[in-house]
């Protein structure tokens, strides 16, 4: 009974808190620009509005167009539940769940890409081509980051891997993972979540043809993914597993907020990159993670 209650609590926390992060980032941006900006809760209103709307479907699409966003959302929720929270551990934990985590993220991307390609639109095709090309590099970085944690904790279970601090390589890992966070969540300098220019879009071009509840699922899934990466980054760097529940939760909340603020500042103060330079920056994130791996692997040796 308690286990079921706990599951619901965790699920509710993930689902309800996620749309807050884009709101915070937008608030930081509007603060820097001297604007009043949209309400912090704007995404909640948007989701409620989209949920009540009907779905407009192209005559060319197959059921995959609807199924894609739904499956992607479920995969992201599943990935979120694999992440531990302090000493309370994860809802689901087993040996090798780190691999499942990576695959769930990849599966979510696959579903969205499939749903986008299903429309046959030139914009969606361009968006998917860009998304998956950059994902190749972003995934290399995230796998290396997880490998670092594996080596350090001698485990392939997220609960054990994320409990201690990343140690000497923590700063490298944090920088690498922050780069991946920006790329995976289509933030500046990789993508511009606010653009209306179809030709420059990555993620946005993939979801142009969605409407109503499926679009709500995509937007909520994107917010969830942002929270998930912020939590992963925090837990990889800070030894939350060594703290008792309340201090761990407080540290987690504070750090996630900090990540959102930094993302907002990056977005406020720099232009986005030309596409041909995106691989350079992603490779930098990957190399940072590789060095973190080297530090974890060889760092303890005399």
């Amino acid at each position: 009974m308690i286990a079921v209650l706990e599951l619901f609590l965790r699920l509710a926390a993930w689902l309800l808190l996620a749309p807050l992060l884009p709101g915070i980032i937008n608030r930081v941006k509007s603060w820097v620009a001297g604007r009043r900006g949209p309400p912090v809760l704007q995404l909640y209103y948007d989701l409620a509005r989209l949920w009540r709307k009907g779905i407009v479907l192209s005559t060319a699409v197959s059921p995959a167009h609807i199924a894609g966003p739904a499956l992607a959302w479920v995969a992201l929720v599943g990935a979120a539940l694999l992440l531990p929270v302090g000493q309370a551990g994860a809802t689901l934990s087993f040996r090798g769940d780190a691999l499942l985590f990576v695959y769930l993220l990849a599966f979510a991307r696959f579903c969205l890409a499939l749903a986008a390609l299903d429309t046959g639109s030139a914009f969606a095709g361009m968006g998917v081509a860009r998304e998956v090309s950059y994902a190749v590099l972003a995934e290399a970085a995230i796998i290396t980051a997880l490998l670092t944690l594996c080596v350090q904790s001698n485990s392939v279970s997220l609960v054990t891997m994320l409990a201690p601090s990343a140690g000497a390589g923590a700063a490298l890992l944090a920088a690498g993972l922050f780069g991946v966070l920006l790329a995976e969540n289509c933030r500046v300098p990789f993508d511009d979540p606010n653009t209306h220019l179809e030709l420059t879009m990555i993620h946005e071009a993939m979801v142009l043809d969605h409407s109503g509840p499926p679009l709500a699922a995509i937007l909520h899934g994107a917010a969830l993914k942002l929270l998930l990466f912020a939590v992963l980054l925090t837990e990889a760097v800070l030894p939350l597993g060594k703290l008792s529940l309340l201090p761990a939760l407080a540290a987690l909340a504070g750090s996630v907020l900090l990540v959102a603020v930094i993302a907002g500042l990056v977005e406020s103060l720099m232009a986005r990159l030309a596409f041909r330079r995106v691989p350079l920056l992603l490779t930098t994130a990957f190399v940072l993670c590789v060095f973190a791996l080297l530090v974890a692997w060889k760092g303890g040796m005399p």
Partner: protein
Amino acid sequence: MNPPREFYLCGNGASVPWAEVPAWPAEEFVAATAAELARGGRLCAWFGVPEADGTCLVAVIAFDAENTLAVGRSLPAVNSYPSLTPGHPQAHLFEREVWEQHGLVPDGHPWLKPVRRQGGGHPAAGEFFRVAGGEIHEVSVGPVHAGIIEPGHFRFQCNGEEVLHLEIALGYQHRGVETALAGGPHRATLSQLETVAGDTTIGHATAYATIMESLAGEEAPLRAQWLRALALELERLANHTGDLGALAGDVAFLPTAAACGKIRGDFLNLTALICGNRFGRGLVRPGGCRHDLETARAGALLGRLRAALADVNQAAEWLWAANSVRARFELTGTVASVQAAELGLVGVAARASGLVRDVRFDHPAGWHRFAPVPVAVWPDGDVLARARVRSLEIQRSGKFLEDQLGTPPDGEIFTAARPPAGDTLAVALVEGWRGEICHVAITDAAGRFRRYKITDPSFHNWPGLALAMRGQAISDFPICNKSFNLSYCGFDL
């Protein structure tokens, strides 16, 4: 009748009896025009005038270094004439337009298709240049865009992210302005000209007023010329500021984007301070201006102008200081100066490719004869150069306004115009904020417009945008487009 030796030479804002405009048989006229272009002339306008027994071609050619305009025409031609375009690409769109309007075929034109309509259908219904190959894909954008902008259709031939060719199909906003103007001037004429391109109200209204004054054989009072020059620079300031902000917005550089949107409003409000309308509607009229700027309001305007100028210079500094912005702007959408000259680009786009072209300097009329403005030139031809030229012009327009507000001429702002002369051709050039605006009017015996030809700077510059995209990443199209910021309705007429 022996063919004339040379074109009629005149200055900006001149008029000449139609009978005295040198006329050649069409073939010789094309050859004579080609010779003028070959010796450094620039085609400002090339259009048809329907006559009883065919269509007269009229050419207005500018010799910038000599501050001279050359006007000539052909004898009425039917069916076809040898094309000017193969030797002089700047005639490309003009000849297509003549064919569309009058059915006169330019023989040997390399890409003859209508400029605004496609066989009665919508503009994108026509044939497009296609690149063949299994790796090539075609991307079509518009006419409905994701932002609140004007409609236009863009057809890209791409190899992956690289654009091999871009063709632009416009005409969705064709309102029949030139047809509506024929038979004028009538009560709606001024309003129609103020809305040829709504963001260039002062530019087009000034050109029209100059035409009317030239046909009447008199000038507007000096104080009215002074007011027009002030309003023209305020229009330039507002639009250049908006463009810098939009460029920053397209690369997601927040500080300048957010600031410029606000400062543009400040400049628009200065125009409103003069005449009560942010776009300057109702300020300029043939014979003078409709609103004066008293000393007290001129003082208030100067104070607010200085504050807005300081703000916009600061916002531009942020833009130049950001490495991430420079990385996006540099070497993007480059138009070499040779290409710019061959295409006959004008305005900001030409000056950013190193061409020294500015009507205020080369063909001064009105107040600019007494208060010259230095030409702002940047050599590189890329997006950065076009942004830099805008920023330079903001500084120089600001300086011009500060100087001129301090030394107002006294006198009336309006004199009732005499009726326009009959059977006369008048030509007026104005350097609007986008570039050279060319108006040519030909009156009938009663002094009504037989033909009123408008050439918006966008008509010269759209091919420049298409050329700038060659070999570029398709994702850079928005910033290239924004760096030109051309008018759709000014082209579509």
